[in-house]
């Protein structure tokens, strides 16, 4: 492995834990179903139970990654960048969705899907700030942003469809990230695998 690959291994380990995106995507789907009052999801307690189950799933998946790919504490610089990215994400999420389409008096009230656009921007900022951005992130999140910006979202608030679109994007990115992580870090080398060499 070359120097850059070795130095970026920590970033890969932190940003390519793609299966963690599965519970996050499911949370977005459940939120959309709850907002639309579909079936049992119209009860708020169902949402809370699902959140608890998904939080448990998230912790289990994180444990799998720690056990399989190891634990690493990012450098102070990387941690600072992550904090800045998180703060920027909150501003973008609230700012973009309110500016593009909301009841706020200063809103542009455009026929766009502001939730889809805001999610795309937030994720892109997070990946770029952490130094973990990959081509498929840009392609998928770019497609999500463009779909959200198309002036076809007339009528009632398309926020729920935006949540589903963001969930699908996060799910696809997560699966691709996981495949990339497995390829990047490769299988564990055992003493046996060296024996025949």
């Amino acid at each position, binding site marked *: 492995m070359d120097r850059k690959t*070795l*130095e*970026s291994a920590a970033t890969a380990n932190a940003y390519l834990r793609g299966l963690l995106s599965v519970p996050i995507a499911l949370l977005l789907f459940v939120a959309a179903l709850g907002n639309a009052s579909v079936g049992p999801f119209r009860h708020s307690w169902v949402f809370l139970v699902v959140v608890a189950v998904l939080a448990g799933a998230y912790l289990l998946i994180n444990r799998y990654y720690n056990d399989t*790919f*190891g*634990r*690493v504490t990012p450098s102070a610089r990387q941690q600072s960048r992550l904090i800045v990215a998180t703060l920027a994400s909150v501003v973008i999420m609230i700012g973009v969705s309110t500016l593009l389409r909301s009841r706020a008096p200063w809103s542009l009230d455009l026929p766009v899907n502001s939730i889809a656009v805001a999610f795309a921007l937030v994720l892109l900022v997070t990946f770029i700030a952490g130094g973990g951005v990959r081509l498929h992130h840009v392609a998928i999140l770019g497609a999500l942003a463009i779909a959200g910006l198309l002036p076809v979202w007339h009528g009632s608030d398309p926020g729920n469809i935006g949540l589903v679109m963001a969930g699908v994007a996060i799910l696809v990115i997560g699966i691709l990230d996981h495949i990339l992580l497995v390829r990047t870090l*490769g299988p564990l*080398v055992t*003493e046996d695998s060296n024996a025949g060499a």
Partner: protein
Amino acid sequence: MPEPDGDLILDRLIHEPGRLAILTVLSSVSDADFVFLQRTTGLTKGNLSSHLSKLEDGGLVEIVKSFVRKKPNTNVALTPVGRERIARHWEQLERLRKLAEPSS
């Protein structure tokens, strides 16, 4: 015969490929555990253990052994000396690479 440039003499403890890989990975993080180092360097458990012992003896890394969920966990971090020496080593390699380039 010309005198060798003292600044270009490579640190033998660091220059071994396995140890160079370990120190390079550690230079980009705060700390990392044994499994992560094994994954990123491609070394076997035995080789990694042996290299880490040598680096610890040389004062380049600090090793903390603990238990995480009743399983042994080995955490490794660069010491300030280790951080300085790996940075210096890469600078020396870069200088050597430039010296080896044909002058135009």
